[in-house]
C-alpha cells in the first residue's frame, strides 16, 4: 500500500474528521466497548457492522454524545472531532449535536407538519434570518433528503402521516437542515421495505458529496453497497477496520470472515 505514492495522495485528500482513541464505554458494570481506535474520514461513508449487542450502536451514539442521556453510561478515552476533544468539559453537547446530526433506526418525525419537522432545527439554531430564508432552507433540505417532489404540495400535512420510507427520508432531511458536518445513521433502513431502502441508500451515496456519513447496519449487503470503509465490531471490540472491498473480499481476522460468511452472529 505504502509503495504507491499517488494512492497515498488520495488518502491525504480525505482528511480525518473524527478520530477515536482508546474508547471504553461502560453501562453500569457492563463493559460495552473495549478500547476502540477508529478514524472516520471526511466525505466518506463508514459502515459499522457486527452481530446484535456488539456495541456498534453504542459507539455510534458516543460520537455525538447521545449516551449522555443514559444515566448509567460512562465513556472513557478520547474522541476528537476536527482535533477537538468532544468529551472536554467545556464542550456543550447541544452544539456538538448540531454539528453531528443523527438519524435513528425507527423513523421518528415530530407529530407536527412536514415543514415544521424540517424547520425545527434551523429555528432553534437561528440559521434563518426570515421566513423566506427558512422556506429556502426547508426546501433545500427536503431536496437533499430526496423527498421534495413527494411532499412539496403538502408541507402542512403531518409528518407522521407519511409512509415509513418517506418518514425516514424526512428524518434525514431534518438532520441535514441544520447543516451538520457528520451524519450518524443508526440502522436507518431496518424498518423499511426494499424499495424504500434502495431510495435511502441512493440518498446516502449522494450525501457523501457533502458530509461524512457513519452508518450502523445489520445488512452486510447494505454495508457493501453504500460504504467505502467498514468497521467490524464483535463483543465490544473493534475487530477489523479498513476499506469495504478489502473487508468483504479479504478479511484479515478469522472472526470477520466467520461473520461475513454467516457462521457467527
Amino acid at each position, binding site marked *: 500500500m505504502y509503495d504507491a505514492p499517488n494512492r497515498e495522495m488520495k488518502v491525504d485528500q480525505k482528511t480525518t474528521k473524527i478520530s477515536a482513541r482508546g474508547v471504553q464505554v461502560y453501562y453500569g458494570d457492563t463493559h460495552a466497548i473495549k478500547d476502540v481506535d477508529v478514524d472516520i474520514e471526511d466525505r466518506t461513508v463508514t459502515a459499522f457492522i457486527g452481530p446484535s449487542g456488539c456495541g456498534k450502536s453504542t459507539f455510534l451514539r458516543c460520537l*455525538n454524545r*447521545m449516551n449522555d*442521556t443514559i*444515566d448509567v453510561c460512562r465513556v472513557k478515552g478520547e474522541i476528537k472531532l476536527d482535533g477537538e476533544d468532544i468529551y472536554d468539559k467545556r464542550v456543550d453537547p*447541544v*452544539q456538538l*449535536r*448540531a*454539528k453531528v*446530526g*443523527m*438519524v*435513528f433506526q*425507527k423513523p*421518528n*418525525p*415530530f*407529530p407536527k407538519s412536514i415543514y415544521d419537522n424540517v424547520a*425545527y*432545527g434551523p429555528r*432553534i*439554531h437561528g440559521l434563518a434570518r426570515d421566513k423566506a430564508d427558512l422556506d429556502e432552507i426547508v426546501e433545500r433540505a427536503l431536496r437533499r433528503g430526496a423527498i421534495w417532489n413527494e411532499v412539496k404540495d403538502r408541507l402542512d400535512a403531518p409528518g*407522521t402521516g407519511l409512509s415509513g420510507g418517506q418518514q425516514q427520508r424526512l*428524518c434525514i432531511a*431534518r*438532520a441535514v*437542515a*441544520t447543516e451538520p458536518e457528520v451524519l450518524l445513521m443508526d440502522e436507518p433502513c431496518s424498518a423499511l421495505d426494499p424499495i424504500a431502502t434502495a431510495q435511502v441508500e441512493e440518498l446516502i451515496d449522494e450525501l457523501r458529496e457533502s458530509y461524512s456519513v457513519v452508518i450502523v447496519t445489520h445488512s452486510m449487503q447494505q454495508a457493501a453497497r453504500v460504504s467505502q470503509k467498514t468497521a467490524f465490531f464483535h463483543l465490544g471490540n473493534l475487530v477489523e477496520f479498513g476499506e469495504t472491498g478489502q473487508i468483504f473480499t479479504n478479511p484479515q481476522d478469522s472472526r470477520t470472515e466467520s461473520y461475513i460468511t454467516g457462521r457467527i452472529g
Partner: protein
Amino acid sequence: MTDATATPQAAPATSLVAADARTQKRNRAERRFRAYGMAAILTGLFFLVVLVSSILYNGVGAFQQSFVNVPVYLDPAKLDKNGTGDIEEIKKVSTFGYAPLIQDGLLSEVQKSGIETPLTKSKDMKNLLSASAAAEVRDYVVANPEQIGETVEFRLLASSRVDGYLKGRVKREDVADDKNISVEQLDLTDQLRDAGIVSKGFNLSFITGADASESRPEQAGIGVSMLGSFFMMLVVLVLSLPIGVAASIYLEEFAPQNRFTDLIEVNISNLAAVPSIVFGILGLAVFIQFAHLPQSAPLVGGLVLTLMTLPTIIISTRASLKAVPPSIRDAALGVGASKMQSIFHHVLPLAMPGILTGTIIGLAQALGETAPLLLIGMVGYIASNYPDGFASGFLDPNSAMPAQIYEWAKRADPAYYERAWGGIIILLVFLLTMNAIAIILRRRFERRW
C-alpha cells in the same frame, strides 16, 4: 408405502367435531368466568341506578319552591309614621312592623276569593308564610320608598310546612303536634292552591342564594358556598398545576436515579393514599395555628386541597410524560435541541392532554372533599349575599358545597334533608361536567405516533 395410506378413510383417534372432556371442561370454565364478570357489572349497574334514582327522587324537590301571591298594602301609618318620607325613618321600621301588613294582605285575599275557612284572624296567616317574607317586603320598601301608600303585589316564599305539604313531604296526620302548622291551615293551603294564590315554581334562589337559619329552610340556597368552592378551586388550580407539572418534569426528565429520588417517588405515591382528614389537621396546624391565616377562608381551604391534589397531578403528569415515546426526545436531541427545548417544544405538548386530564380529575376530587374542610372551619354559616369583593372572596369566611351539604344533612328539619339531596345533585352536575371535559380533552388532543 405403509399401512396408513391403505386406509385413509379410517376415523381419527380424536374427532374435532365432538369436543373431548377436557375441552368441554375448559369451555365451561370460560362460560362460568364470563357469567361472573357479567354478574359483577350488573351488580355495579344496579347500585348505580339505585344511587342516581334515589338522589333524583329525594333532591328534585329542592329545585321547586312554593310561593304565595299576596297584595300588600304598604300602610303609611305603620311604615312612615311622620309622613316625612325620610329614608332613615323608614329604615327604623323592623321586619316586625311588616309582618302584620303581609298577614292582613293574605287574609283579605283569602276573604276576597270567597274561601270558607275557620281561620279569620291575621295571625292565622303567619304560619303559611316564610319568616323571610317580611324581610323581602322591607327590602323592597327601602329600595322604593315612593311606593308607600300603594298596594303592591308580592310573590313571597311560603313556609317550609306549606311547601312540604304541597310536595307531599308533610302529611296531614303528622301535624297534630306541630306548632308550626295546623290542619286548618293545611286545608286553607289546599284551597289557596286551587284559587291560584299558592303555586309552585322553579327555585332559582336555591342555586344562587345564601344559607338560611334553622327556622327558615325554604330560604336556604347553595349559591354562596358554590362561590366558596369556586375560590378554593381557583387557589388549587393556580398552585397545584404549576407546582405539580414542574415537580413531575424535574423528577421525570432531570432528576438522577438514586436513593433520594426513589424515596421521594415512594412518598409521593404514599401521599396520594393519605386520608384527607390528615391533610385537614395538617392545614389546621400549619396554615391557621402557625401561619395565622384566617379561619374558614377559601384561601386556606384551597391550600389544604392543593396539598391533597398535588400527588394526583404529579402521578398523572409523570405517567403522561413517560408515555411520550423516547424516540421523540432522541429526535429533538439529535437535531441539537437542548434538553429543555426538547421537553418544552416536543414532550410537554404531547403530554398536555394527559396532564390536563389528571388536573381536572384532581380538581374534581378536591371539589368533592369534605373532611379537611371541617377541620379548618370551612363550614361557615353565611346568610347574606357574599362576597363584597374579589379579595374578600379568598379571605372572608365561607363554606364549600360538600360542607354545606353536610351542614344541611345535620339539621333537624326535613326540609333541609331535601335541600341536602338537592345540593348533591348540583355537586354531581359539577363533577360530571368536569369529568366530561377531561374525556373530551383526551379524545380531542390525543395523538398517535
